[in-house]
């Protein structure tokens, strides 16, 4: 007779314990990044390019901080994310609007399914695509453009779906109010739908950005990496995650791994939190 309440309590205890286990890794990871990473974060970390192995080794041997920083990574990330945004944001928004406007139609359902499949496809596969479409045929070598295209393909489905979902939250009658005033279709989109759902659209874009900023795999086989600051789209470029990968493969650079990761994670998590903050509340 008492078995049932006991089982009930045991299960509740297990739920609490497992939930606490589930949140431990994020705390451990952030703790590790801060503990090992904060030392290397200083002005030169943001203003200088990554050091050579030799410089890093000398510094390590003398017990000094590794000189240099991740400027080439930051500029590369900014460049590629910027170009990817220019490609993906307009296409994503417009396709999202299309899906919203044609919700029940067969073709729209196909586009939506394709977008979902693309969103689920592994980033390394999208890297292969960037390699074949851009590295091989357009820039004839690893390039920032190839990286941007790969990132843009990753951003597209995220923006498409968030745009559609955001627009769906606008009551149909708001659109009708515009139509009843005889307002042409494109003006209703530009001046009513987009402003009304603005914060939701921005949230979607920010989430898409924060998703691709940390991507390494697709850049590895498209942008490759570069020791210098490069704003040339048809030349290889670095990115913060690419630098982390390079530091990881170089035993002399270990200390820089943690500061770069700390920087990257703080950047992405801040973006995530901001986007959650401005996200429209579901009712």
């Amino acid at each position: 007779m008492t078995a049932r309440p006991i089982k009930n309590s045991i299960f509740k205890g297990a739920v609490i314990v497992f939930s606490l286990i589930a949140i431990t890794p994020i705390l451990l990871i952030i703790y590790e990044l801060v503990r090992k990473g904060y030392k290397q974060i200083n002005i030169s970390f943001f203003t200088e390019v990554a050091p050579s192995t030799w410089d890093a080794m000398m510094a390590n041997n003398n017990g000094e901080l590794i000189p240099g920083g991740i400027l080439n990574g930051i500029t590369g990330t900014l460049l590629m994310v910027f170009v990817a945004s220019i490609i993906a944001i307009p296409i994503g928004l417009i396709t999202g609007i299309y899906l919203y406007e044609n919700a029940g139609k067969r073709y729209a359902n196909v586009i939506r399914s394709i977008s979902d499949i693309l969103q689920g496809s592994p980033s390394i596969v999208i890297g292969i695509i960037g390699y074949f479409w851009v590295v091989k045929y357009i820039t004839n070598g690893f390039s920032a453009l190839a990286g941007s295209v790969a990132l843009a393909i990753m951003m597209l489905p995220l923006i498409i779906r968030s745009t559609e979902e955001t627009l769906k939250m606008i009551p149909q009658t708001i659109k009708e109010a515009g139509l009843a005033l005889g307002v042409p279709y494109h003006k209703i989109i530009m001046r009513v739908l987009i402003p009304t759902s603005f914060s939701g659209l921005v949230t979607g874009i920010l989430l898409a950005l924060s998703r691709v900023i940390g991507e390494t795999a697709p850049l590895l086989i498209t942008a490759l990496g570069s020791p210098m600051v490069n704003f040339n789209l048809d030349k290889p470029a670095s990115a913060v995650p690419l630098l982390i990968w390079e530091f990881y493969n170089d035993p002399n650079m270990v200390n820089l791994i943690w500061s770069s990761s700390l920087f990257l994670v703080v950047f992405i998590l801040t973006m995530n939190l901001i986007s959650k903050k401005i996200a429209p509340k579901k009712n």
Partner: protein
Amino acid sequence: MNSENITKNILFVTSLIILLISIGMVITLVSGSIPIFKEFGFQFIYSTEWDPTAGRENYGALPVIVGTLITSFLALIICLPLAFSTSLFIAEYYKGSIISKIIGTLIDLLAGIPSIVYGLWGFYVLRPFIVQLGLSEQGYGIFTSSLVLAIMIIPYATSLSTEIISLVPNHLKEAAYSLGATRLEVIFNVTVPAARSGIIASYILAFGRAIGETMAVTMLIGNRNAIPHSIFDIGNTMASVIANQFGEAEGLKLSALIAIGLLLFLITAIINYLGKLVIKQFS
């Protein structure tokens, strides 16, 4: 043509872009895979050989396919109790409380951590721990990768199932309580059955994530193209073999990697599609 139609056409034509991208992706992957299938036929899929030596080149994808499935399954199994408990914690036991919001936010943050940072953490923190436990000599391998993957997919497995569990109407649960059921019994006889397909779908989608995950696995799995003998053995996954070997690959080997990319794309597409189907059943 009036502005109405111009707008409609712009929307439609833009929506074609994502269709073309995905068709282009498939064409690129298929045409890149042709050489390897011409050489080895479908033996490529079930052969276990991987020998890039010129003259006796031989490529088989079975080890990486098996490696991928084992790591992802193991990750899912490790993740299940954590994600399920967290969903119940947030959406059932402490629904709406501050502690639930905190846990929810922390779980969401997990999704923001880049794959490469998980890899670093796994390499520098988890791997030594595995060695200490005596589970494996170097700490690399299937188990270590699965453990990190399990953490990485927690947010994907949790968010959707949490949402759906919290949607289970109260009057259903109250009916069971009024009959004297304990909370545990309500959860397993009312809540979970009502939310079943949503919960299953979120685990399917999380599994799809695990399959495509690249960097963290590449850094932890040990990178050996052979079928692993136990879960503590080293191995390779489809994504990690591409990330590792794409850079220097050409000829048949390149084609083999692209074919693996194609298989990876198809597998994740099918899994995602399945997940969506299950969700549809729910709604």
